[in-house]
């Protein structure tokens, strides 16, 4: 349900852009999903056919690129993956960090026919 509502947002934006570019058929839609963003690629794929039904995106393939959830440890300056290290710096064991990547959720591009 969560992913479906989000995809409605995506469809609205893509249709606007396609119209501005005089695109009438879309072969593929590419989304960039960060590991730390609140969307699950698997569920996006599952909801996608329902979300695009009857829109310009109907029949277009959905491609998802996943970007890593990386952070910079503030005390020891190590860059580490938050998922793999379960939120703790693998070098100093602390949890004071700045998130560098992985929160993004972008409509990257469309491939027009």
């Amino acid at each position, binding site marked *: *349900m*969560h992913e479906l*509502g*989000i995809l409605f*947002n*995506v469809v*609205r*934006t*893509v249709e606007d*852009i*396609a119209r501005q*570019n005089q*695109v009438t058929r879309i*072969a593929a839609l590419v*989304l960039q999903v960060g590991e730390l963003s*609140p969307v699950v690629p698997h569920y996006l794929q599952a909801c996608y056919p329902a979300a695009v039904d009857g829109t310009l995106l109907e029949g277009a393939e959905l491609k998802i690129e996943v970007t890593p959830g990386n952070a910079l440890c503030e005390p020891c300056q190590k860059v580490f993956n938050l998922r793999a290290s379960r939120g703790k710096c693998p070098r100093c064991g602390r*949890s004071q960090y700045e998130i560098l990547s992985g929160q*993004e*959720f*972008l*409509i*990257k*591009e*469309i*491939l*027009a*026919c």
Partner: protein
Amino acid sequence: MKVIEIKQQVYQQNDRIASELRAEMKQRGTLLINLMSSPGAGKTTTLVRTLEALRGEMRIGIIEADIDSDVDALTVARAGAQAVQLHTGGMCHLDAFMTREGLKALNPAGLDLIFLENIGNLLCPAEVDTGAARNVMILSVPEGDDKPLKYPQIFRVVDLVLVNKIDALPFFDFDLTVFRQRVSALNPSAQILPYSARTGEGLGAWTDWIRAAAAQWKRA
């Protein structure tokens, strides 16, 4: 085949509408508060108590959101608020599009304060800008002091955490000191106010917070 680069945040459109709503509310001098919590934390009871405490002092509107029912809107309307019910039809969070619909239905003219009662859920309401001026969450004692560890995002985005049901503290292993530490590790500027909507203990600090926020919103 032609590649059209978009590189646009999925929520860009939503965020633009949210900013427009905030500007409009600013002009009206109406403070819009997004109230979030799990189901059963006491959002509606807290609102009813708040309406009683501020009666005659502030004109208050409430936008209730639920998957499907209008129990909450009826309850707060009985308590004296101007209320509308949004049916989200299965959506698990409110976005700026829905807030805009709610505001249209409510007619905010002359209101000092509007509560947007979000859907009971600690996950995605935290991710989407509704257009509110302040974000407030309620966490109740029976839910446990470990919630900042499990649902960090919502604690990062709120201005205030209300800790409800403190009259139940003797029956639960809820450590307020530990809870404060966990919240402040995620969000040092978040305020924390313990209270009980049932007994009324601590409610005064919450209504004072509202008065200060509303005055600041009108002034600045």
